[in-house]
């Protein structure tokens, strides 16, 4: 009877939006309390909650459907409560990622955390799945509301993160669950007003109690809690945005004295500083205004000061303004040389600009308002695209924290700062004779520095420079290396200055073309890896060297933007063997975590898909179902994987267009989900005029058409319209995503409707398969992108879409009607 009623669309959209918001928040919260890479694993796996729901409902569907209203409302309520309590319990686990290879207990903690965090996904997915079964004729519309709700949820949560701390936003997500319960009881016409009010009241009370007690429990091994153990330190301010949690720390007794890479020959002490921690780590500093610029001399004791000793740059571009140290360094030299350089600095995080530029401007002596200094919010490549300016010097120095970088935590981060295309972009914005200066941490064995060198060589070659070696200089301290790339060739006068600069500071010159290297170095290594490496990368043995090196030094490109990925499969056995003998640090965690996530997700998926099969035959054998289960598995696996492949890969493509990871994430994700939702909704209407099979053929043909044309045309289109204002770019992104997403929203509901008509018992199973496929898809997409690039990911997605045409799960066609 109820099956003819209107499904509870609003509560479905709300719960779906809340679930997506919960996912985004988990990423934020775990980046704060732990580290990004393990968050990746935990959250990736927690999404298997969708798979769990499918499996469990498959088995108990009869029982659950008889109590639809109760179970539906209960799921919404439990989503609201577990989203907060699950997180609180999870962060109480004494999990320590760094001990995982030594202490097997950590695996158990990890497992418990993952189960706790998957609960809300399980409940949200169960509510939606039950709605599919209860309102079988409305599958496409329900799915439409589900996707559209998720799309809006992604936008709302990012907006929310600008105004609320993530833990408070989590409470809002919990509250959304409770509100959806209220809406659903109205939508379902529940008459037990008293019970509903009582439940609402109690859960609101519980939630407020939780809100009061919810505090983030940061790992004691992150640098912020470590710093706060020192007497006289205090958090003077905390500020949060989607970019991160920023903590400003004052240390009254023991000064910060932050000057990474300071020469061993230096006797200078840094000026007083305030520490800025992002997500409890990655410290930078705001430096107190100098009474006299000579106090800044320690900034001249860093490898990154070298370019200022080769020329007096009249225009400088600083990438990553941060706390302002690089700007100070530029000012120090411009003062010394009695010139007044124009200094532009870009900073991705607007919150940081506000903090350093205005809130602490008194402390730092109005650094960001200093005559000649201009600060721009945004990504450097976006800035250079919009801006036709050319510089004497572009300075990119130590963008990430040493420890995180050294243990490979950034391996999964797409980084468009250090690709071949990026370096070419910078060099195109450097005047003839100008310099690009790139400073990175020294890792042992060498990784970043050599990869960056290889990238520069390749960029120069692609720009038609006949002899790239003439424009390259590499110097090194024990802690940092600075690579200079000149738009032109370094003169012998330059080399002399470089020698002098380095000798005074105990730095080594590891590469200077055509000039003999010093016989004795200041910073020894077992072998001169840097000298050997740079020489090999410039020789005709380059490929052989890249093959033989035990870390991956192949330059990153925009399609494969993983500069920080160094792991080679062939080296892993040796590294694991050495783990008890100090070899633990050779293993780079980001990549290992990705592969582990994929393996665990695949194994669990097989179980979650296979288990219901034990229960299913009973329900579906005797009915009208003549639908092959193999088809169901293949079809829903394929579209689950393909949808996320497309979404993830296009999100990356649009980052290069919008030049802003956050905007790109928000706009692309929301557009994909909302328009796919609309597509799903429309497919219901269109099903009145066309057969589902034909609609599927049509939508797949459309997806292939748009997909292939985007692969072929998007890059050129982006270059052609690169200097369009950002708002127009956002609009254009939506316009480009819309038709593709609209079509991509159709294959799932078309097949699910077919199941609902012909084999309803298979509906929750298919839902579960799709859920598992999404989890596999997310890590598989990254893994494929690391090795083959995002274009390949899109091509594979298109192939999968083409393939589903042959697996459409419907009863065999009968020739006569």
């Amino acid at each position, binding site marked *: 009877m109820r099956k003819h009623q209107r499904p509870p669309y609003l509560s479905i959209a709300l719960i779906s939006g809340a679930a997506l918001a919960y996912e985004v928040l988990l990423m934020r919260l775990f980046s704060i309390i732990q580290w990004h890479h393990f968050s990746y694993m935990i959250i990736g796996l927690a999404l298997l909650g969708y798979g769990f729901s499918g499996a469990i409902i498959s088995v108990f569907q009869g029982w659950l459907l008889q109590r639809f209203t109760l179970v539906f409302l209960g799921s919404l309520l439990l989503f609201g409560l577990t989203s907060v309590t699950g997180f609180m319990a999870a962060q109480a686990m004494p999990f320590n990622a760094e001990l995982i290879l030594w202490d097997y207990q950590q695996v158990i903690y990890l497992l418990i955390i993952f189960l706790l965090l998957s609960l809300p996904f399980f409940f949200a997915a169960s509510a939606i799945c039950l709605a599919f079964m209860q309102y079988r004729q409305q599958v496409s519309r329900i799915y439409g509301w589900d996707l559209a709700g998720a799309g809006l949820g992604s936008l709302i949560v990012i907006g929310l993160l600008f105004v609320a701390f993530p833990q408070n936003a989590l409470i809002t997500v919990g509250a959304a669950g409770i509100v959806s319960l209220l809406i659903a009881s109205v939508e379902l016409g529940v008459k037990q007003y008293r019970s509903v009010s009582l439940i609402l009241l109690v859960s609101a009370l519980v939630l407020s109690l939780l809100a009061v007690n919810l505090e983030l429990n940061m790992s004691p091994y992150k640098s912020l809690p470590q710093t706060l153990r020192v007497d006289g330190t205090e958090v003077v301010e905390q500020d949060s945005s989607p970019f991160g949690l920023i903590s400003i720390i004052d240390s009254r007794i023991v000064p910060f*004295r932050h000057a990474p890479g300071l020469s061993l020959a230096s006797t200078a002490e840094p000026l007083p500083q305030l520490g800025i921690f992002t997500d409890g780590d990655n410290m930078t500093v705001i430096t107190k205004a100098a009474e006299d610029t000579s106090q800044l001399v320690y900034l001249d004791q860093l490898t990154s000061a070298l370019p200022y000793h080769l020329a007096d740059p009249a225009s400088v571009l600083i990438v990553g303004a941060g706390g302002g140290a690089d700007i100070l360094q530029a000012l120090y030299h411009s003062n010394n040389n009695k010139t007044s350089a124009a200094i532009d600095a870009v900073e991705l995080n607007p919150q940081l600009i506000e903090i350093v530029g205005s809130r602490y401007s008194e402390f730092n002596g109005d650094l960001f308002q200093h005559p000649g200094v201009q600060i721009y919010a945004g990504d450097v490549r976006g800035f250079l695209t919009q801006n036709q300016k050319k510089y004497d010097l572009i300075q990119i120095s130590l963008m990430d924290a040493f420890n995180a970088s050294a243990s490979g935590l950034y391996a999964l981060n797409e980084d468009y700062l250090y690709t071949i295309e990026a370096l070419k972009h910078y060099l195109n914005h450097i005047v003839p004779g100008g310099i690009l200066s790139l400073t990175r941490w020294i*890792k042992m064995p060498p990784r970043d520095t050599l990869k960056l060198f290889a990238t520069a060589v390749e960029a120069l070659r692609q720009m038609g420079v006949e002899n790239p070696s003439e424009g390259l200089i590499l110097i090194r301290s024990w802690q940092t290396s600075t690579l200079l790339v000149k738009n032109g060739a370094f003169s012998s006068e330059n080399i002399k200055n470089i020698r002098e600069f380095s000798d005074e500071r105990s730095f080594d010159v590891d590469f200077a073309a055509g000039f003999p290297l010093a016989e004795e170095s*200041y910073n*020894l*290594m077992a072998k001169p890896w840097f000298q050997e490496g740079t020489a090999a990368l410039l020789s005709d043995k380059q490929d052989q060297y890249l093959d033989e*090196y035990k870390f991956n030094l192949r330059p990153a490109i925009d399609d494969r933007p993983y500069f920080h990925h160094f792991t080679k499969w062939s080296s892993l056995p040796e590294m694991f063997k050495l783990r008890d003998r*100090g070899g633990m*640090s050779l293993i780079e965690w980001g990549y290992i975590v990705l592969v582990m996530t994929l393996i665990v997700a695949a194994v669990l998926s097989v179980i979650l898909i296979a288990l219901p099969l034990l229960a299913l035959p009973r329900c579906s054998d005797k009915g009208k179902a003549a639908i092959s289960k193999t088809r169901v598995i293949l079809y829903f696996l394929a579209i689950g994987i393909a949808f996320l492949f497309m979404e993830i890969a296009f999100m990356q493509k649009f980052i290069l267009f919008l030049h802003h990871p956050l905007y790109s994430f928000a706009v692309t994700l929301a557009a994909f989900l909302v328009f796919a939702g609309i597509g799903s909704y429309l497919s219901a209407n269109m099903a009145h005029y066309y057969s589902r099979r034909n609609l599927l053929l049509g939508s797949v043909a459309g997806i292939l058409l748009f997909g292939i044309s985007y692969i072929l045309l998007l890059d050129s289109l982006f270059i052609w319209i690169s200097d369009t204002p950002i708002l127009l770019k956002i609009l254009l992104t939506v316009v480009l995503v819309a038709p593709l997403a609209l079509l991509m929203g159709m294959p799932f509901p078309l097949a699910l409707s077919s199941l609902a008509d012909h084999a309803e018992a298979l509906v929750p199973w298919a839902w579960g398969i799709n859920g598992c496929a999404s989890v596999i898809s997310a890590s598989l997409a990254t893994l494929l992108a690391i090795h083959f690039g995002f274009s390949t990911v899109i091509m594979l997605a298109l192939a999968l879409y083409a393939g589903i045409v042959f697996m459409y799960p419907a009863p065999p066609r009968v020739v006569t009607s």
Partner: protein
Amino acid sequence: MKLLTTAAGMFSTLLIVISSGAGILAHAADLTEQARLEMIRNIEQDVRETSLELNKSELDPRVMKALSRVPRHEFVPADEKQNAYENRPLPIGHGQTISQPYIVAVMTDMLNLEPDSRVLELGTGSGYQAAILGELASKVYTIEIVEPLGLQAKERLQRLGYDNVTTKVGDGYYGWEEHAPFDAIIVTAAASHIPPPLIKQLKPGGRMVIPVGSRFMMQQLLVVDKREDNKIVSKQVLPVVFVPVTGKH
């Protein structure tokens, strides 16, 4: 083989827990001794198999002896005692760790200590490293910045009779002027750079060793030598034998 020795290590530590629970103290001391010797055998074997970048196939026997004398289980919290002689880092509270014994052995060995050496340590932590140094050198000065840790270590080192180890709570940036110069300095506390005053307090011919990395995972060892002519030379050493290029050229 590795598995066997680990299993043996685990078994013996398990015995320690059981026996100490039963209160058979004398017997327990015996077993602790055994576990410690087992740990030493493990380290020795690891070093032999590695023959480090230090170009050594074994560490200074004095260092190994020091390791076999210091009761590591006294330096870890009660709930980690059963793991005290495993060759791995352990959490000791306050966001700090006690290093992997293998790494402690390698670092100590690199300091080239003589019985009359004066050593400065920054970052006392549990006091384990200071105790090892105390076994080898004549005077050890150690500074810890986190007060509760420093006080705990002081009490512990006194109780265990390390009279030649002097502790202090405070900022280590300026070293310990009144006891300078030092033959060796070991910096286990994180710092963005090497404090210039420390280099000043190093004797010509002296050596400074700094592990670089996170609390649980050392990435590399930085060795800073002050030569007799006061020239400063640093060396980056991997704590492991690993050649980054397969040598096919």
